[in-house]
C-alpha cells in the first residue's frame, strides 16, 4: 500500500517536466535539444519530400494519417508472411497464418497489441524488429499526432491543424526514440536481454536441459511501454523475468507507460491556457505547470485512477476463498498468476495502470485476478479515458467534458460553452456518436461471441468467469488496450477476425469523429466569458465530470458486469 503511494508521488514529480517538454515540442517552441534534432528532422523531411511549413485542415490531416497507416499495414503484413526467410531468424520460426497475420497487423497498427500468438514461437527477430518495434513507434506517434492536432483545434489559435508528417516525425525523433534508448539501456542494466542470438539451451545441475529465450527484448520493452503499446516479446509479457527482471525494471516500465499520457494532459492545459492569457493581458505567457483547464481534466482522471488502484489492491489482498477452503493460507493475498518479486502491491498497481493508460502489458495474469480485482481493469478499458494511451485517452476525456458541459448547462439553463466556443447541435451529435461507438462494439461483439458456437469454443474457464473472458477480450480490443484474460483460446478464425474488426473500428472511427469535432470548433468564433458562463476549471466541475463518467459507464455496462465479475464474486464469497 505504502509503496503504491510513494511510487505515484514520484510519478507526479516526473510527469510535469515531461508535460512541459511535450508542450514545447508540440508548439514548435525552443527546446534544449533542438540543435541536434532540427538537423535530423530536416534530413527526413527532405528525403520524404515534405514541406514542414504547409498546414493541413482536419480532413487532410486524418486522410494523411489513414493513408500512412494503410501503407504500414501493407508492408508489415508482407514481412509477417515472409518471416520464415533466414534473415534475423536464428530460431527458425515459420511464416504466420493469414488470419493471424491480419489480426496481428491490425492489432499493432491500432496501438492495441492484442496478441493471439506467442512471441517465443510465433515471430522471428526480423518481425519483432521491423514489424512490431516499428509499428510500436509509428502507431503511438500517430495517436499523439492526432491528439496534438485535436488540441490545436480546441485551442483555436492557428488557422490549421498542423502537418501530420511533421508531428509524426517530431514525436518520434524528439520524444520516443531518445527515451526508448535511455529506458532500454536501463532495462538491460537490470537484466533484460538485448542480443540477436538464438535461444540458449543449458544443462541444469540436475542433469536436465532448460531453454532460455533470447533476442532484442530490451529494445522492444522500452518502446512497448513508452508508446503505451503493450505487446510482449514473450508470451507472458512483462510477467516474465526476462522482460521485467527486478522491482526497478518494474517501476521503470510503470513510469514509461504513465509519463506520456499524463504529459499530454499537461500539454493540453498549457496550449489552451496560452490563448486565454494572451488575450487577457497581451503579454507573453509565463511558465506554468498545468493550466487551469488541464488541471480539471488531470484531477478527474487521477481520482478515477486512485479509486481503481485501491479497489484492485484490496480485492487481491483479500485472497481467494476457494483456496482458503482447500486449506491454503490466504494471508499473502491471491498469489496465483503473480510473481513473488512484485507481490500484491506492485501487481495491483501495474494492472490498474496498464488498463487505465491503455498499454496492455501485464506483470501478472489478469485471468487469474479475483473477480473484483479483475473487474477494475475491465472497467477502466470500458471507460477508456482514465489517462488513456497515446493521446487518445485525452481526446476521449474531452468528449465527456463536452457532454458534462452540455448536461450541466442544460440543468442550470445556460448555453453550453467550452474553452470559449459554443457547443451546438453538430458537436453534440458527433460527441454522442463517438461515446456510443465504444460500448456498441464491446457489447454487440460479446453478444455475437456468446451466441455462436465458434465464440463459445474459446472460453476456457467455467461459469460466470467465461463471460468475463469474452467481455474482457472485446473491451481490450475496442479500447485498443491489448491485455487479455489470456486463458481464452483466441487464435481461431472467429476470434482473429472479430477482434480485428473491433480494434479497427475502435481506433479509426473515434479518431475521425474527434477530429471532426475539433475541426468544427476551430472554425467558430470565440465568445466572451461572462458571468453566465459555466466555468470548467473548478473543483465542482471536476466532480461533476467524474460522476457523469461513472453514471454513463454504469448505465451501459452494469448489466453485463453483474453477469460476469459481480456474479462470480458473489458465488465465490458465499
Amino acid at each position: 500500500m505504502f509503496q503504491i503511494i510513494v511510487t505515484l508521488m514520484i510519478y507526479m514529480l516526473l510527469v510535469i517536466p515531461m508535460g512541459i517538454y511535450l508542450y514545447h515540442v508540440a508548439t514548435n517552441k525552443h527546446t534544449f535539444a533542438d540543435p541536434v534534432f532540427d538537423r535530423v528532422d530536416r534530413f527526413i523531411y527532405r528525403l520524404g519530400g515534405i514541406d514542414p511549413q504547409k498546414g493541413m485542415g482536419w480532413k487532410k490531416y486524418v486522410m494523411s494519417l489513414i493513408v500512412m497507416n494503410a501503407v504500414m499495414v501493407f508492408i508489415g503484413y508482407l514481412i509477417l508472411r515472409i518471416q520464415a526467410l533466414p534473415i534475423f531468424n536464428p530460431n527458425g520460426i515459420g511464416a504466420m497464418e493469414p488470419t493471424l497475420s491480419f489480426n496481428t497487423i491490425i492489432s499493432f497498427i491500432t496501438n492495441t497489441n492484442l496478441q493471439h500468438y506467442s512471441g517465443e514461437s510465433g515471430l522471428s527477430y526480423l518481425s519483432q524488429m521491423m514489424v512490431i518495434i516499428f509499428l510500436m513507434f509509428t502507431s503511438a506517434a500517430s495517436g499523439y499526432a492526432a491528439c496534438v492536432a485535436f488540441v490545436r483545434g480546441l485551442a483555436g489559435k492557428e488557422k490549421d491543424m498542423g502537418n501530420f508528417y511533421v508531428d509524426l516525425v517530431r514525436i518520434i525523433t524528439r520524444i520516443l526514440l531518445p527515451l526508448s534508448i535511455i529506458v532500454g539501456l536501463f532495462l538491460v542494466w537490470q537484466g533484460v536481454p538485448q542480443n540477436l542470438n538464438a535461444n540458449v539451451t543449458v544443462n541444469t545441475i540436475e542433469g536436465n536441459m532448460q531453454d532460455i529465450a533470447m533476442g532484442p527484448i530490451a529494445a522492444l520493452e522500452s518502446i512497448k511501454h513508452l508508446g503505451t503499446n503493450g505487446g510482449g516479446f514473450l508470451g507472458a509479457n512483462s510477467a516474465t523475468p526476462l522482460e521485467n527482471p527486478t522491482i526497478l525494471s518494474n517501476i521503470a516500465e510503470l513510469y514509461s507507460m504513465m509519463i506520456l499520457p499524463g504529459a499530454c494532459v499537461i500539454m493540453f492545459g498549457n496550449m489552451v491556457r496560452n490563448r486565454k492569457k494572451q488575450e487577457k493581458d497581451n503579454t507573453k505567457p509565463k511558465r506554468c505547470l498545468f493550466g487551469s483547464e488541464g488541471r480539471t481534466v488531470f484531477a478527474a482522471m487521477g481520482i478515477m485512477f486512485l479509486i481503481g488502484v485501491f479497489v484492485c489492491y484490496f480485492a487481491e489482498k483479500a485472497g481467494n476463498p476457494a483456496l482458503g477452503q482447500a486449506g491454503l493460507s490466504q494471508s499473502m493475498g491471491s498469489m496465483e498468476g503473480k510473481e513473488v518479486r512484485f507481490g500484491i502491491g506492485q501487481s495491483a498497481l501495474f494492472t490498474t495502470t496498464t488498463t487505465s493508460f491503455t498499454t496492455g502489458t501485464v506483470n501478472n495474469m489478469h485471468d487469474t485476478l479475483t473477480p473484483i480485482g479483475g473487474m477494475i481493469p475491465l472497467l477502466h478499458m470500458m471507460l477508456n479515458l482514465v489517462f488513456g494511451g497515446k493521446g487518445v485517452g485525452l481526446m476521449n476525456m474531452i468528449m465527456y467534458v463536452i457532454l458534462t458541459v452540455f448536461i450541466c448547462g442544460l440543468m442550470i439553463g445556460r448555453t453550453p460553452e467550452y474553452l470559449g466556443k459554443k457547443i451546438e447541435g453538430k458537436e453534440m451529435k458527433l460527441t454522442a456518436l463517438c461515446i456510443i461507438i465504444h460500448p456498441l462494439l464491446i457489447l454487440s461483439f460479446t453478444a455475437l461471441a456468446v451466441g455462436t458456437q465458434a465464440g463459445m469454443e474459446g472460453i476456457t474457464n467455467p461459469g460466470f468467469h467465461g463471460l468475463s473472458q469474452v467481455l474482457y477480450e472485446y473491451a481490450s480490443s475496442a479500447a485498443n488496450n491489448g491485455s487479455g484474460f489470456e486463458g481464452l483460446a483466441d487464435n481461431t478464425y472467429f476470434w482473429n477476425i472479430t477482434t480485428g474488426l473491433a480494434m479497427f473500428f475502435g481506433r479509426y472511427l473515434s479518431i475521425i469523429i474527434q477530429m471532426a469535432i475539433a475541426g468544427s470548433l476551430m472554425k467558430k468564433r470565440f465568445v466572451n466569458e461572462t458571468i453566465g458562463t459555466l466555468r470548467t476549471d473548478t473543483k465542482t466541475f471536476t466532480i461533476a465530470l467524474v460522476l457523469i463518467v461513472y453514471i454513463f459507464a454504469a448505465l451501459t455496462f452494469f448489466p453485463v458486469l453483474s453477469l460476469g465479475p459481480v456474479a462470480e464474486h458473489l458465488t465465490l464469497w458465499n
Partner: protein
Amino acid sequence: MKEKLKSSLSGLRKAVLITVILLFLCGLGYPMLLTAIAQVAFPHQANGSLIHIDGQAVGSKLIGQDFKEDYFMKCRPSAVNYNTYSEEQLENGVYGGVASGSNNYAPSNPDLVARVEADIEAFLVENPHLSANDIPTDLMTASGSGLDPHITPESAKIQLTKLVETTGLSMELLEEIVENNTENKLFGIFGENRVNVLGVNIDIAKHMGLIGAQE
C-alpha cells in the same frame, strides 16, 4: 480532376517514403544501436544473465527451474515447467518448445482448487512435520510467467527441516545459504523480500560436492 489525382498521388508518395524512412530508423537502426551499446556496456545482462559452472551454463539468474531431487529446494508450480525438460521428454514430444505463461485458472475454476489440493498433499508427504496451514501461499500457487525464480523467505524457511535430512548439511549452513540468496525490498519500500531458488540450490550442490566452483 487531374489536379486531384496528382495531389492524392503525391500524398501516397509521401506516405510511402516516410514509412520506409521510419521503418529503417525505428525498425532496424534503433534495435541495432541498442544491441551494440548493450553488448559493450552490459554484456552479462544483455546475454541473459547466465550462470556458468566449470565453464558450462547451468541456468539464468533470472529464471527458475523445475527441481525434482529431494536435496534441492523447490520452486513454485509452473504451467510451462520452467522450460526444463529431460532427453526423453524432448524425444516423445512432452516438451513442445520454449514458452511462458500460466494455466490462467480463474479463482472460481475447480481445476485450480484441484491442482492446489494435489500439490499440498504431495508437499505434506515430503514434509510430514508440517500441516497445510504452515504453507505460505506463494509456494502452492503458479506464477504468471511460469518462470518465477523466487519464493518468499517464509517458503524457503519451511523447506529447511527436510533439506537438513536430505542434504546432510547443518541447519545453520542452510540458513546462511538462504540468507546469501535473499534480496530485500528496495529501500525497504518497493517490491517484496524474495529468495532466489537456483542460487540456493547451486550453493547446496557446492557444499555437497556435487559441482565445482562457480566462475
